[in-house]
């Protein structure tokens, strides 16, 4: 993120604990004005809890939340200039669409004529003109979704929080709404904080993705970086498909390292941001489309496998190659001619710049223990 961007939401050292359950660990996160930030992770990773703490429905056990530089973590929801689009839409069933959308304005005691004007304007924005008199029960899922968004946006919030808003829609509608939401966000310039467990959704819509894993923020970066340079094994596994090998550093020669797998050797690359020691455990992650095979041995690589099965998924051909220790390596190709044949015995290799080396968690724990021994915390 460039320096001239203005922070709008700042989360500082936030922890959330329910009984024995530590849901959010030491979270530090800054969201900038006009940004589309997605919190991505499997269910139970704490992403919704973070959203609810920004919205004011939960109080952090520890830490602070700032909105436009003002501390808000102890304020009630109605005192915060953020609005939420709930997963279940939470439309008021006893009010028609007009009354639902105008609810926030009514609470702010906006004049009748201005209310009417603004509701009309926002209905136009979400393409629901003429639906004023209908009740939520008379709308389809997609329409309810639009009403929920309109009801939140009419208050002109600084930040819009969206909690899996497309979760209940079918695939086709979801894809349409993804694009629509992204366009809406660009048009209005409002900061969106979006929670989802759908990685594809996160990759399509976001400016930045925050990947949550069991209450920890594993990585916060652009979709490209998250995909190309996953920071943890979890991220590599969660975003797209990945082949993950547990390896040990055998030899370091310049920026090339030789790593040992259970079933052979391979090469990888290190740079100034990633240094390793001899005999250190690292994960080597390679995307299926980056895996290469050869009939003859390639210099630096000694991994041998047998092509076991092939699956056609539309325009992609996926092959599974089984190694001698039973690990299955996934390989994908766009062209049938480039895919290996079933039954072939092949050498597996990759271009050194295509492998991502990741410190193993064991190594991090080692660091923590070391740190504690030296008197740090």
């Amino acid at each position: 993120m460039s320096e001239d961007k203005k922070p709008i939401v700042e989360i500082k050292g936030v922890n959330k604990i329910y009984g024995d359950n530590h849901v959010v660990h030491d979270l530090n996160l800054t969201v900038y004005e006009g940004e589309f930030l997605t919190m991505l992770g499997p269910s139970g990773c704490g992403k919704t809890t973070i959203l609810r703490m920004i919205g004011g429905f939960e109080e952090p056990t520890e830490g602070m939340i700032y909105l436009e530089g003002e501390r808000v973590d102890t304020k009630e929801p109605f005192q915060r200039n953020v609005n939420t689009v709930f997963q279940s839409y939470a439309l008021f069933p006893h009010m028609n669409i007009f009354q639902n959308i105008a609810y926030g304005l009514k609470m702010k005691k906006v004049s009748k004529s201005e209310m009417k004007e603004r509701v009309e304007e926002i209905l136009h924005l979400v393409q629901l003109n003429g639906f004023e008199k209908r009740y939520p029960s008379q709308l389809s899922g997609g329409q309810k979704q639009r009403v929920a968004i309109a009801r939140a946006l009419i208050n002109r919030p600084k930040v819009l929080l969206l909690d899996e808003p497309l979760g209940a829609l079918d695939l086709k509608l979801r894809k349409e709404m993804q694009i629509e939401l992204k366009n809406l966000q660009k048009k209005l310039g409002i900061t969106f904080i979006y929670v989802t467990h759908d990685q594809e959704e996160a990759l399509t819509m976001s400016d930045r993705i925050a990947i949550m894993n069991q209450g920890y923020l594993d990585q916060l970066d652009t979709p490209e970086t998250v995909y190309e340079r996953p920071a943890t094994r979890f991220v590599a596994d969660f975003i797209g498909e990945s082949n993950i090998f547990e390896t040990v550093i055998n030899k370091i020669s310049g920026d090339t390292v030789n790593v040992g797998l259970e079933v052979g050797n391979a090469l990888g690359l290190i740079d100034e941001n990633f240094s390793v020691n001899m005999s250190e455990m690292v994960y080597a992650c390679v995307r299926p489309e980056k895996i290469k095979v050869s009939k003859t041995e390639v210099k630096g690589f000694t991994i041998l496998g047998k092509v076991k099965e092939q699956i056609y998924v539309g325009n992609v051909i996926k092959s599974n190659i089984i190694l001698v220790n039973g690990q299955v390596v996934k390989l994908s190709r766009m062209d049938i001619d480039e895919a290996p044949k079933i039954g072939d015995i092949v050498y597996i290799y990759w271009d050194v710049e295509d492998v991502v080396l990741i410190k193993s968690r064991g190594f991090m724990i080692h660091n923590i223990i070391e740190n504690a021994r030296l008197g740090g915390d």
Partner: protein
Amino acid sequence: MSNGSKKRKNTVPLLATISPVAIWLLLLVAAPLLYVFFLSFMATDGYNVVFKFNLDNYKNLLNPTYLEIYRNSFIIAFFTTLICILLGYPFAYIMASVGKRSKTIMMIMLMVPFWTNSLIRLNGWKTILGKTGVLNSLLLSMGIIGEPLEILYTRGAVLLGMVYTLIPYMILPTFASIDKLDGTLLEASGDLGANKLHTFLHVTLPLTFPGIFSGSIMIFIPCLGFFFVSDIMGGGKSQLIGNLIENQFKAANNWPFGAALSVMLIALILIMVAIYKKSGGDMEDLGVM
């Protein structure tokens, strides 16, 4: 052949299971009701029923003395319902918002008196409210009052007895509707800038109104017929429709007129239930279907 036997196979257990209920309902509900309806068109010789068709009983319903009794009954029923709403709703609201443990305790407090006959419980009130009862003795000994208060055998005492007997019928349906209220709607209301009071007035109250409505019907209707409450608490001084009907069957020995009064009461109740249904009420909330 095989089809026929298969059919019989299904019919026999079906008949066996539903016929006892059907017979029960026919004998104990439908037949007496029909008999009451039939009786309401008969006459009396002052002691026995005379089987001669006439409409005099229905004409007699509009007698000014009786109109006064109807008015009394409706006033008592109205205020009983109102007090039950004012006391029952907050109780139900608190019950829905407290923890599981407190909820169970409150529910037990509500249900245990149910297991004791209401006649006994009402007579218990007599020992508290009577001239030489607990309350008066206490107030006298403390010197707050000079002579015993006339609490029992007043309209107020009847009202108290009615509210005491009927309030669970308000608490249970309102509790059910508050408890099943979707919490995210309240969160959404807060999110859109409403404080707690506004959220209650604009979201909670309208959405739990069906509970209040069905509770009201379940209190208003029995109130018209609960003769024993005004017998015990009102000392027979304040006559209600229920007492009037009771008297026709027991003291006055005028069964046909008593039957006509009953038919009128049933008709009133049916009209109220019809209004309830028409205004979107859920029959399940009444425990009817």
